[in-house]
């Protein structure tokens, strides 16, 4: 990997009470690439990415050890405010979670408005909605409630909301798992385009999806990072037998 690494995880261990859900994981993600996290349910994929924007610690009784560096800065260093970390590391969730009391416009601009960020909101709105391929579908109904959009549109709105605050890294937790195949295809297409501007870490259960959209893949099993490498290599010539069993569908 010759590219500069945007995100570097060093010896990360994440606890729920006395159980370690992530055990001593180290990996790095180069800028403007997509890293897919795969693995069977309960292997710690979601926990892992929730450590990358310090969302894990919001659950009572949790604890994190190790470090996560963005451009060399440790998110877990003493005195770092998680609020500012989350403006640099955006997140899209498994289920579309638009704000139901807000219009489409307010949803996109929520991060800016609630953080008191000034600027040309109108052009940010249009630009963000164009980048998420929503503009043509919603430009005439920007003040309608966001819950009236379809599930796929809502998820693209959530992506628009996340990128409107201009994060550097975008985390996606199975963003297409609640969507139909057409909406899924649009999200995947979108990820390919967003890669130009952001570094993306995406959790997915769908191995074909990982192959289609990611540059690198990390396979997690029981909280451990089993194998991490270029996606092509993970899916064609994995080095670890357990990875091969998983990607060929023998378990999981």
């Amino acid at each position, binding site marked *: 990997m010759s590219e500069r690494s945007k995100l570097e995880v060093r010896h990360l261990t994440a606890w729920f009470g006395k159980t370690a859900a992530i055990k001593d994981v180290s990996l790095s993600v180069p800028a403007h690439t997509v890293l897919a996290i795969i693995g069977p349910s309960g292997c710690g994929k979601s926990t892992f990415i929730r450590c990358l*924007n310090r*969302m894990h610690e919001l659950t009572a009784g949790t604890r994190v050890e190790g470090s996560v560096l963005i451009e060399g800065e440790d998110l877990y260093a003493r005195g770092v405010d998680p*609020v500012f970390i989350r403006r*640099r590391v955006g997140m899209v*969730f498994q289920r579309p979670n638009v704000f*139901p009391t807000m219009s489409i416009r307010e949803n996109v601009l*929520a991060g800016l408005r*609630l953080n008191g960020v000034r600027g040309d909101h109108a052009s940010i709105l249009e630009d963000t909605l164009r980048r998420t391929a929503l503009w043509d579908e919603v430009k005439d109904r920007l003040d309608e409630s966001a819950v009236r959009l379809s599930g796929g549109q809502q998820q693209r709105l959530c992506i628009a909301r996340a990128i409107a605050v201009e994060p550097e890294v975008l985390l996606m937790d199975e963003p297409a798992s609640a969507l139909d195949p057409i909406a899924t295809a649009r999200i995947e297409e979108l990820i390919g385009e967003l890669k130009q501007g952001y570094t993306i870490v995406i959790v997915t259960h769908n191995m074909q999806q990982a192959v289609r959209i990611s540059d690198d893949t990390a396979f997690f099993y029981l909280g451990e990072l089993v194998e991490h490498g270029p996606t092509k290599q993970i899916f064609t010539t994995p080095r670890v037998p357990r990875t091969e069993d998983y990607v060929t569908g023998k378990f999981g």
Partner: protein
Amino acid sequence: MKSQRSRRAVDLFMTALCGTCTALALIPLASILWLVVRNGAGAISLTFLTALPAPVGETGGGVGNAIAGTLFMVGLAALCGVPLGIGAGVFLAERGDGPLGRTVRFCAEVLGGVPSIVVGIVAWGLIVVPMHRFSALAGAAALAILMIPTLARATEEMIRLVPTALREASLALGVPAWRTSLSVVLRTALGGIVTAVLLALARAAGETAPLLFTALNNQYWNLRPDQPTSSLTVQIYNYAISPYDDWHQKAWAAALTLLLMVGLLNLTARWLAGGRMQRGPA
């Protein structure tokens, strides 16, 4: 076949039983409405709703000052009770899992169970006695104390109904926790909280015991918080225990007025709650 017939019989029996119970349960409501409307409707007029009460021995007069007094004291009580109740509810929902939260919740429950006459005597001891006079302030204080625990618990429930996913969506945008609570969580729960506030106001408007020896009564218009103030409920009480037929009729009419006011608040609350449900899942 036989088992089907017996199941039908059981079904019919249970339906009839439930129907009868429902009808029986509705009898008190129906009789209240019937009695109050029959005895009160005749005496209600514009004069009755706007005039001052007539002196003893004279007929005529109305409950204008009592309506104003009730609205005034409920308003004063809301001014203090609503922010405190909602604030406590937000605290309980957002930070209420620690020992402090458990203590606050326990206290709210105990306070919610205190009989209103006891709250009234406390307001009397704390405000009326030191001020050497009955006052709207003392009445409003008693009503506010009654409002706080119900509002706190209702607000907590409404906030807990807001999906974690919305809170996380906001936090993940880098919005601070306090701003998330106010602008996302509270805003989403607002419809339910407004409903709870209206119900609390309706309940406060119907209280008599805490006003008896705090606000006392007043034969004249009063919107000064440091003066005795008339209220519909205390006025009903005074009219009802009097020996005069004219006053008895006025008691019924005042009761009907109060019933309409409280009913209007309840209907508004229901309408708001219904609208919220129609707008889709929160």
